[in-house]
């Protein structure tokens, strides 16, 4: 029987009421009295030397308040990077300055070198056309391997090369891994590209800066997943504004998918310019601008080798990856191909020896950073593709090969050779569930039916691991993070018993206002409607690290549980006084305090009122009021896992791939709101279908962005995806957080691409094609079939 409220209930989302009636308040809906408008002037060259920028005519244009260039930012810090990776020789990565506006050189198409601020947006746009910039084009480096060649053009003249770092993990294991691969019965090798993507939340980025000179206070409204992180990075590293004078508000935010984690130059600009001009400054990104200024995702080129014995047991795994950083280091970019990628290379399998090498490379392209999954999709794609190829080469069924190497459920906690400890999982169970819900037994009949219509049908699986709930602060500190990764919650019980919960997490589509309230309601036994969730404003919430990496319920939810436990403990003290009973005899359930073995009881609301009207109250023992804060620092990552299955039909005449069925069997541990969890999986899978079949960010050899709008970048549309079959009934709860939850936000985007590609290759089995790089566009699939037919 499904629950109708609290933990486990599919409570309808309260935030929907404002979104469905046009009453959401997104950043572009914020208009401040007296605001001016900023237009960024961006490089149309991938690489160029700035000889001069003449703004005279633009500054004289109607309505223009000022034109800013790099010279206005002398003494202002660069946009900082939040993670320093140490290379395999123990040296820190090369870290170039990322100025707010380009200094000396422009380094990618979209790199801003001037900003016009005017009374109206049209005036600013018109004046931007009048800026006379003399920029000498320089050769651009686009391809990562070319960028590392001797004599290659350097993106940053003050660095020794375009190599950001050369990372080895675990370096001490390299010799043993090499030897195991040399001596193995069979080694399967695969070279593949994890295509560059653009996150494309439907709401473009927006920033509005305001300055109050009489209080010396700055306010920034911004489209962010983590307003406190922006306040910290921008205040401490760029503009030198102390936190108590800087308020960052991220109101309703229209999707993030990672790309709204990072601190962007436009945020610092609007904050800076509002003080300089003594006028509020608003900037709204156009979609065309977003394509060349939002951090991109993925863009790895990898070679993976899997060594096996005669029975298909995995012996060793070695991967070499080139990871594109783009022209500057975005906030968390260095961590994505390393600690969020290398640590997941064990997957769901017992592989005794693993070595991961990653070379991070600067190129004349937009910075690359975390996008839904961030490193984990890249790891899973390599692993789940090479396992399928190995199965084919060894003549073993791909599901069976996975099963032979799965970590069994009695082996948890399981220490992988790549430095992490999985707490729980049951991979055979999720695989069993996947085969059931995807009706593997019926596939042969469906394939025959497709064949009768002239279509090639394929069935592909993948089984993923991910690490969510980032992360123990002391651990990530050792790994180079320049921040802690706890989360905060304040539970404020009001005098009449209603509750305001202030969380450092941020909801931009995940439905926290509903699911977080379910958790607190469940613990207190009061209606969800009595609880409000407040987020997205540094002035209203305790310091928190925000929402990304599927961390909100695992870390933010845990902080809320801890704070609520403190509330209950104090409320019991108050109740024991009111009932004249020993505190140890007080029980609390369903919003009632009772004394065991008596008919004494006091209601939740009476205790709350007593806390704020303490006439009859143990003032000598406890303070009035009922408000508690908790900062929760997780003991470990959480490890969701699951099996994904895709069925495709391929048109042999055109190469067009249709995803006709998709099934997901996930283990997220305990689930707070099944409806919301399923929605997260749907959305993640659709993004995975996008990566595997449709989406590709393409630069030409000169660094020109060829996919600069929705005309060229293929977003998944409603007719590109099927209905999804999702299941989360396999639940091995997390052992180290109080809710037993693991996180569900990224799984769909992690597990789906390899399942889709494996399905297409299964459909093309008769052609003997063992690899096609994503996206599997009709052109690529058709060409692969033609090459196979001609024996190329």
């Amino acid at each position, binding site marked *: 029987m499904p629950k109708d409220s609290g933990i486990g209930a599919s409570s*309808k989302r309260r935030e929907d009421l*404002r979104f469905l009636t046009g009453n959401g308040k997104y950043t572009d809906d914020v208009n401040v009295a007296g605001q001016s408008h900023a237009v960024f002037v961006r490089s149309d060259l991938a690489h160029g030397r700035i000889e001069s920028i003449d703004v005279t005519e633009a500054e004289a244009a109607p309505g223009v308040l000022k034109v800013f260039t790099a010279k206005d930012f002398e003494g202002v810090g660069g946009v900082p990077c939040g993670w320093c990776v140490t290379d395999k020789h123990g040296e820190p990565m090369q870290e170039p300055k990322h100025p707010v506006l380009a200094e000396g050189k422009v380094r990618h198409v979209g790199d801003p070198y001037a900003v016009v601020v005017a009374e109206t947006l049209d005036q600013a746009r018109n004046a931007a056309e009048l800026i006379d910039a003399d920029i000498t084009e320089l050769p651009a480096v686009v391809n990562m391997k070319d960028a590392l060649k001797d004599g290659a053009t350097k993106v940053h003249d003050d660095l020794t090369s375009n190599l950001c770092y050369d990372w080895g993990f675990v370096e001490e294991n390299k010799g043993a891994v090499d030897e195991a691969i040399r001596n193995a019965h069979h080694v399967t090798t695969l070279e593949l590209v994890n295509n560059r993507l653009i996150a494309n939340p*439907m709401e473009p980025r927006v920033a509005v800066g305001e300055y109050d000179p009489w209080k010396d206070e700055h306010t920034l409204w911004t489209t962010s997943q983590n307003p406190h992180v922006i306040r910290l990075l921008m205040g401490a590293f760029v503009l030198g504004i102390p936190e108590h004078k800087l308020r960052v508000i991220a109101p309703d935010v*229209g999707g993030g998918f990672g790309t709204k984690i990072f601190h962007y130059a436009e945020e610092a600009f609007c904050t800076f310019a509002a003080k300089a001009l003594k006028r509020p400054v608003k900037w709204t990104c156009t979609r065309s601008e977003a394509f060349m200024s939002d951090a991109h995702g993925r863009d790895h080129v990898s070679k993976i080798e899997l060594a096996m014995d005669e029975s298909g047991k995995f012996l060793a795994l070695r991967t070499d990856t080139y990871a594109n950083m783009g022209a500057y280091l975005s906030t968390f970019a260095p961590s994505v191909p390393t600690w969020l990628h290398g640590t997941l290379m064990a997957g769901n399998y017992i592989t005794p020896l693993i070595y991961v090498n990653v070379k991070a490379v600067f190129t004349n392209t937009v910075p690359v950073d975390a996008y839904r999954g961030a490193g984990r999709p890249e790891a899973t794609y390599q692993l789940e593709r090479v396992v399928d190829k190995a199965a084919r080469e060894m003549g073993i069924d791909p599901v069976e090969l996975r099963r032979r190497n799965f970590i069994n459920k009695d082996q948890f906690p399981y220490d992988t050779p790549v430095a992490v400890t999985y707490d729980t999982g049951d991979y055979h169970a999720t695989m069993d569930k996947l085969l059931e819900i995807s009706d593997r037994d019926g596939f042969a009949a469906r394939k025959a039916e497709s064949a009768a219509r002239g279509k090639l049908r394929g069935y592909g699986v993948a089984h993923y691991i991910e690490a969510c709930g980032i992360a123990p602060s002391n651990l990530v500190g050792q790994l180079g993070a320049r921040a802690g990764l706890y989360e905060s919650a304040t539970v404020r019980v009001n005098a009449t018993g209603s509750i305001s919960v202030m969380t450092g997490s941020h909801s931009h589509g995940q439905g926290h206002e509903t699911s977080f309230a379910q958790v607190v309601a469940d613990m207190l036994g009061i209606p969800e409607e009595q609880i409000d969730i407040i987020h997205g404003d540094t002035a209203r919430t305790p310091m928190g690290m925000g929402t990304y990496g599927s961390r909100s319920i695992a870390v933010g939810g845990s902080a809320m549980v801890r704070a609520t436990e403190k509330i209950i403990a104090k409320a019991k003290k108050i109740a024991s006084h009111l009932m004249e009973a020993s505190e140890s005899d007080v029980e609390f359930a369903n919003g009632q305090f009772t004394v065991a073995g008596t008919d004494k009881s006091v209601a939740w609301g009476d205790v709350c009122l007593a806390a704020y009207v303490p006439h009859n109250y143990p003032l000598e023992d406890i303070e009035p009021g009922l408000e508690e804060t908790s900062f929760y620092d997780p003991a470990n990552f959480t490890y969701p896992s699951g099996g994904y299955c895709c069925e495709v039909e391929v048109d042999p005449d055109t190469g067009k791939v249709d995803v006709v069925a998709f099934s997901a069997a996930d283990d997220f541990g305990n689930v707070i709101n099944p409806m919301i969890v399923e*929605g997260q999986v749907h*959305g993640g899978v659709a993004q995975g279908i996008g990566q595997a079949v449709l989406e590709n960010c393409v630069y030409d050899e000169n660094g020109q962005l060829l996919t600069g709008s929705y005309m060229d970048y293929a977003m998944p549309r409603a*007719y590109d*995806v099927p209905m999804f079959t999702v299941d989360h009934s396999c639940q091995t709860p997390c052992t180290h957080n109080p809710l037993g939850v693991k996180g569900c936000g990224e799984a769909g985007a992690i597990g789906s691409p390899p399942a889709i590609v494996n399905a297409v290759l299964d459909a093309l089995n008769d052609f003997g094609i063992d690899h096609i790089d994503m996206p599997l566009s009709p052109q690529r699939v058709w060409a692969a079939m033609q090459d196979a037919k001609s024996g190329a």
Partner: protein
Amino acid sequence: MTTITMRVNGKDVSAPAEGNTLLVNFLREDLKLTGTHVGCDTSQCGACVVHVNGVAVKSCTMFAEDAAGAEVSTIEGMANADGSLGTIQQAFQDYHGLQCGFCTPGMVMIAADLLRSNPTPSEQEIRDHLEGNICRCTGYHNIVKAIQAASGQDVSAVAAE
């Protein structure tokens, strides 16, 4: 600058605007109806869909002055007279047809457009009609279910689970 008059959500409104003012900017900035959103600049995303004289229009692709004298409906006019959610809006909430909410106004307006001409659309007809509306959050699954439910059809027949 000329004064443009139109009827929006049943109310006569007028405001001065330049000839190059797009309908979406007239709605958002001059009439302060910020429910209609701008998600792209190439008429691809559909976040700005409104109805003009009963026809779904991408309001980023029409000048405000071309809508002078027209009947315009926006997301702000879709609730029932008592303020409760209309049938389509309610179905979107019931079937979790929205996450971040940014594409949602356009989705509700295009769904209303579809159901007016095709009261009981098939799954494929719904997907085809959503061609010009991009959602990045939901994978469309629950949007399709919501529209089918709003049309009074048995949703269990649509859903895979």
